[in-house]
């Protein structure tokens, strides 16, 4: 046991680590499956209680059927498409403006003192509060919804990127200057990569806020989209439809948050040596 050759020791350790990792993953997946299975079971039993008004408590199966019908008759698909289109447009505009603005705020003092303080102040306002103003300005149309999405996400993107730039170690900036980085190249080759972990956090936050603003706006101002399915479900007293829409909203949120941003953040943490 103690007399193994070095290479065999390494391969033994490697194998053990791999096995450990696999058991760990298996345990975590099993636990999750068990938990959610249990949750659905409780829901099922609860929905079948005699004392409850049935239309307020559909069974899991009924929700599943509604979900399937909505997808196969394309009504949910169109709603998802409408919402995602709004979201992407608004979010991209926020990124395109917010990112460079954040970089500038982090570097240029007078901009930070003016636009920076304004952003900080406006952030205290929940984005949906912009809706009345937007409707009065732009009318009941797509632009009004875009406006709410942008106001919801741009501030957190800008301010997080600004924090990222400010937290860059000054010695890195000095090193870049000494090595001949011009003003513009300092932005593209140093400020952006150095604050990339923050930029990503900002993008993620911005996404979350954009998503929430959109849902709030769609609930209030009905016209095609996931929010309007929620409203429609309420009006039709169709709880299965309401829950279906909620599940879709959770699914989309998780997909972007965990899968896309989670992966990017992990990648950067490894590369930057912070993990």
């Amino acid at each position, binding site marked *: 046991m103690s007399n193994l050759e070095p290479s065999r020791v390494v391969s033994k350790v490697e194998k053990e680590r791999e096995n450990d990792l696999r058991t760990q993953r298996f345990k975590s997946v099993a636990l999750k499956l068990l938990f959610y299975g249990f949750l659905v079971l409780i829901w099922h039993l609860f929905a079948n209680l005699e004392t409850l008004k049935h239309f307020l408590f559909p069974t899991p199966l009924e929700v599943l059927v509604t979900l399937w019908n909505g997808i196969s008759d394309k009504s949910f698909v169109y709603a998802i498409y409408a919402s995602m289109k709004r979201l992407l447009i608004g979010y991209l505009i926020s990124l395109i403006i917010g990112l460079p603005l954040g970089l500038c705020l982090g570097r240029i003092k007078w901009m930070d003192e003016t636009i920076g303080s304004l952003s900080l102040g406006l952030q205290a306002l929940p984005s949906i509060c912009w809706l009345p103003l937007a409707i009065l300005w732009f009318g009941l149309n797509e632009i009004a919804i875009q406006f709410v999405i942008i106001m919801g996400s741009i501030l957190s993107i800008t301010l997080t990127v600004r924090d990222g730039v400010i937290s860059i*170690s000054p*010695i*890195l900036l*000095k*090193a*870049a*200057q*000494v*090595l*001949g*980085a*011009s003003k513009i*190249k300092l932005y593209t*080759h*140093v400020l952006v*990569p*150095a604050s*990339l972990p923050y930029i990503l956090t900002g993008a993620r936050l911005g996404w979350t806020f954009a998503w929430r603003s959109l849902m709030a706006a769609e609930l209030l101002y009905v016209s095609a989209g996931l929010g309007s399915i929620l409203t429609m479900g309420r009006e039709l007293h169709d709880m299965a439809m309401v829950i279906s829409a909620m599940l879709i909203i959770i699914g989309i949120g998780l997909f972007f948050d965990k899968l896309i941003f989670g992966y990017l953040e992990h990648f950067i943490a490894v*590369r*930057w*040596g912070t993990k």
Partner: protein
Amino acid sequence: MPKIDLINVNKIFLGKTGVVHALNNVNLTIEDGEFLCIVGPSGCGKSTFLNVVAGLTNVDDGEVLIDDMPIKGPGTDRVLIFQEPALFPWLNVIQNVAFGLRMAGLLKEESYERARALLRIVKLSKFEKSWIHELSGGMKQRVALARALALDPNVLLMDEPFAALDAQTRDMLHEELEILWLETGKTIIFVTHNVREAVRLGSRVILMTARDGKIKREYKIDLPRPRHIEDNELIDIARIIRDDLKEEVLKVSEEVI
């Protein structure tokens, strides 16, 4: 021919603990091709001196000239190697070394070729693809050295670059640096705590005072090259300087008590 000229240079920091006169009426001429070493107690203003020459810090009074022109900001004719490695964590080793060349507009292949040659000098060829967080402290400092040398500057400003290295690597890099200096005739300003290192490398050694930012004394080192850090004559000279330095260090510790 003078390369760098400091005329009545003053630099004052207003810190939380009070006024620090980091450079106090410093007058100094550094000849073209000189290897100047600066020693002095911690906090005496050595890094400040280098920052001023690098153009990263403005002086509060006086003039700093390079080739008879005032220094207005950083320039790639004089590259500073910082006390900490200050490498870019988002770039790997070879990308770090090539950074300055890329900034100067060189193409990727060309700059990598030069970067590789320098990585050979600092004995890090095997690590060209490594990420910075995978290197030891000494390896990082060697990458920083290679990154500065890549730009082939006329003036090299080095702030205790070898402090974190083991004795063998340090000896080796002393040799490399001496050869580089003899071959290229660069002007080098080298800051160190290690008096023997200063005598090993410098053609002149300057001792700074502990608290008031002045030059206390300077020593011409006329020992033949190549030198070795264990040469008897070298050790004798180092002893003299160390005694003077000790006086200054004691001043600081008395103040602290």
